[in-house]
């Protein structure tokens, strides 16, 4: 009887999971497997293709451009993650307590996150316009030197990183506010009674209490950082090849160019697989490392 009940339950659970599982299989798992298979071919969008072994991978790693795109991707990811998480945490601490107007401030910092990156990219393109953009007009007005911003290979990537940080840190702020509000106030009271100052309370109560959310936030920010594409495409030339002089070309952008401009789907798939492996590796390392700093029992 017990066995039959368990089977019935399993059947019901499975039937509820089935639609999502089918969706996941068709739209996530199957394309992933297909990308891996295509990465071993010279597929160019049609029925005529052949297997080329590891040729695409060898070509990628022997191409200095590919390595440079990897470097730019890492740079974007690292800087944007540090600032998005840092600013998110900073403003979460400031705005986690209830005070007059705190909801307004929270909304102000969160609103950029609900805007389309395309619209944000276009708006900032005009703000950072080298000759008559708002920023340069303002700098000139207060007597400071102007910059070429997106038109210079030295500053273009930094401008894009800044915009990505501006748009996304509000998301992490909201996550962290939720986490902070779940930390019991008794822990702070106990720490205070033990003589801990605000900094020590932050290190020994806030961080451990927030660590599961911080871990989630950092993981998501890293994955998003590796996948950046939209800002690059919109703000630095689109199909004209990113720029200037390839200074903002990240790996996802090169994947796009190879697949949809050069029709080198096989090579683009190999690049995608490399990117996927990097993300998996970084996530795995983080997962292993979380045991040392993430506490799930602080409430």
């Amino acid at each position, binding site marked *: 009887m017990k066995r039959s009940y368990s089977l*019935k339950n399993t*059947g*019901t659970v499975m*039937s*509820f999971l*089935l*639609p999502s599982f*089918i969706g996941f299989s*068709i739209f996530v798992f199957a394309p992933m497997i297909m990308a891996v298979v295509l990465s071993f071919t*010279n597929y*160019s*969008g*049609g*029925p*005529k293709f052949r297997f*080329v072994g590891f*040729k695409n991978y060898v*070509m990628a790693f022997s*191409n200095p451009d590919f390595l440079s795109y990897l470097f730019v991707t890492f740079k974007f990811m690292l800087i944007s993650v540090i600032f998005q998480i840092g600013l998110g945490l900073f403003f979460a601490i400031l705005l986690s307590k209830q005070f007059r107007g705190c909801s307004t401030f929270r909304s102000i910092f969160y609103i950029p996150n609900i805007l389309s990156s395309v619209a944000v990219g276009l708006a900032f*393109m005009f703000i950072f*316009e*080298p*000759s008559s953009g708002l920023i340069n007009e303002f700098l000139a007005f207060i007597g400071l030197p102007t910059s070429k*911003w*997106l*038109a*210079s*290979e030295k500053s273009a990537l930094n401008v894009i990183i800044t915009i990505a940080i501006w748009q996304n840190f509000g998301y992490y702020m909201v996550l962290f506010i939720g986490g902070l509000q779940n930390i019991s106030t008794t822990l702070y009271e106990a720490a205070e009674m033990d003589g801990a100052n605000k900094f020590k309370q932050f290190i020994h109560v806030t961080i451990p209490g927030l660590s599961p959310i911080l871990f989630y936030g950092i993981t998501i920010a890293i994955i998003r950082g590796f996948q950046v594409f939209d800002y690059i495409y919109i*703000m*630095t*030339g*689109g199909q*004209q*090849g990113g*720029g*200037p*002089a*390839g200074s903002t070309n990240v790996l996802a952008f090169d994947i796009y*160019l190879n697949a*949809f*401009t*050069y*029709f080198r789907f096989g*090579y683009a798939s190999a690049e995608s697989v490399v990117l996927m492996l990097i993300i998996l590796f970084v996530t795995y390392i983080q997962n292993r490392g979380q045991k040392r700093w993430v506490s799930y029992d602080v409430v």
Partner: protein
Amino acid sequence: MNLKKLLFISSISFLTMGLLFANGSSEESDSKDMNEGPVTISYYTWDDGCHQALIDEFNKTHTDIQVDGHILASADYETKLTTLLSGRADIDAFMEKRQSDVFSQYENGYLEPLDSYIEATGSKNQAVENFKSAVTIDDGIYQLPWRGGAYFTYFNKNVFEKAGIPTPDTYVENGEWTWEKFEEVSKAIHAADSSLIGSSIYMWGSQAFFKAGQEGDSIVTADGKIDNIENVVDILEMRKRLEDEGAMWNLIDMKVTKTHYSKQFYDGNLGMLLIGEWFPGQMVTGAADGLYDFDFEDWGITRLPCDREPYYTVGLPTSNCITSYSKKKQAAFEFINWMSGPEGSAIAAKYGVLPAASSEAAKQEIAKNLPDEKSVEYFLENRNNNTANFSPYATRVETEFAKLQEDYLLGNLTTDEFRTEFIDSLEEIIRTTY
């Protein structure tokens, strides 16, 4: 009861999936048209006003064939077309936007050879004859050109008047319109008034291949050999000299600010713009929409600067193709053949489009959209046409060149370094194209 629940949920799941993929069988239902009433062909192109007008006119004047036009956004037309073709979507014919894509489509077997269809008409197709090298792959014809390809010098007479310099057509008449003279005139305009910009060559990588094309260089030949690149280097050096003086629109600025070439010309302070045969159409619509302040008669057209005799311009035609898997190939051919013929070219001409094979009616229509007699003369003259960088390597060559060009214009590369890096990247492209 539980079993019923399970069945119900499973049915709903599969029904949902079925609905998601339900549109995959449209080809079958369309094939009924072959037997019932007029044949309806599915035709893909991008959002150019002229294209819709051509489809409408064909549908109005034909009862046996109707065209179901699918107008896609221009910006991502190539990407969508590739995806549709690889999914064997219901496409009988389509217009090729980026001409070098034809090589990949040919390799993948998407294109129907058109030789037998042309032969069956009993006469030569003039549009094909005019651009034979651009539509032939391995001795077969795979495209029917409908719009001619040619680059010109467009100039603003007011700017020349302000600068006190003769307009470029004067130099053409004297046989002096060389690249050196172009540079000299660009500088002279800016020197006369610093608010004036002498000239603009747009940001597309291909625009630096004008002189190479005129001289018959291929950059990389179809069989994978690096051709002469010195004419590309010449234009690049000229561009840097002009940009450094402020006599030419800065390439990186126009890319970052996405300033379209038409906007540069509409602004009224640009002396010369080197751009293709479609530009008169944009001047017509620009005037209708009040996008520029000067009069329609204040601009003119003349030849591209050229260092060789006889004169050569550059440019590829815009063509139509038929899919190899279409079930209505003959009907699709009738439509694209009509588009390339006198009726199609006369309609296209109304929009300022230069047809691949011109007719007297088309010439008269085009003349209405040009500012003066001399412009008509240069726009419609018989000319030689070459194209650089038309090979299976073309798109990658153009992108790699564009990147190095920016590095050079930013002062990060000397001319020798550019030359070395460009050749290295060409070798890499040839080596990694398979």
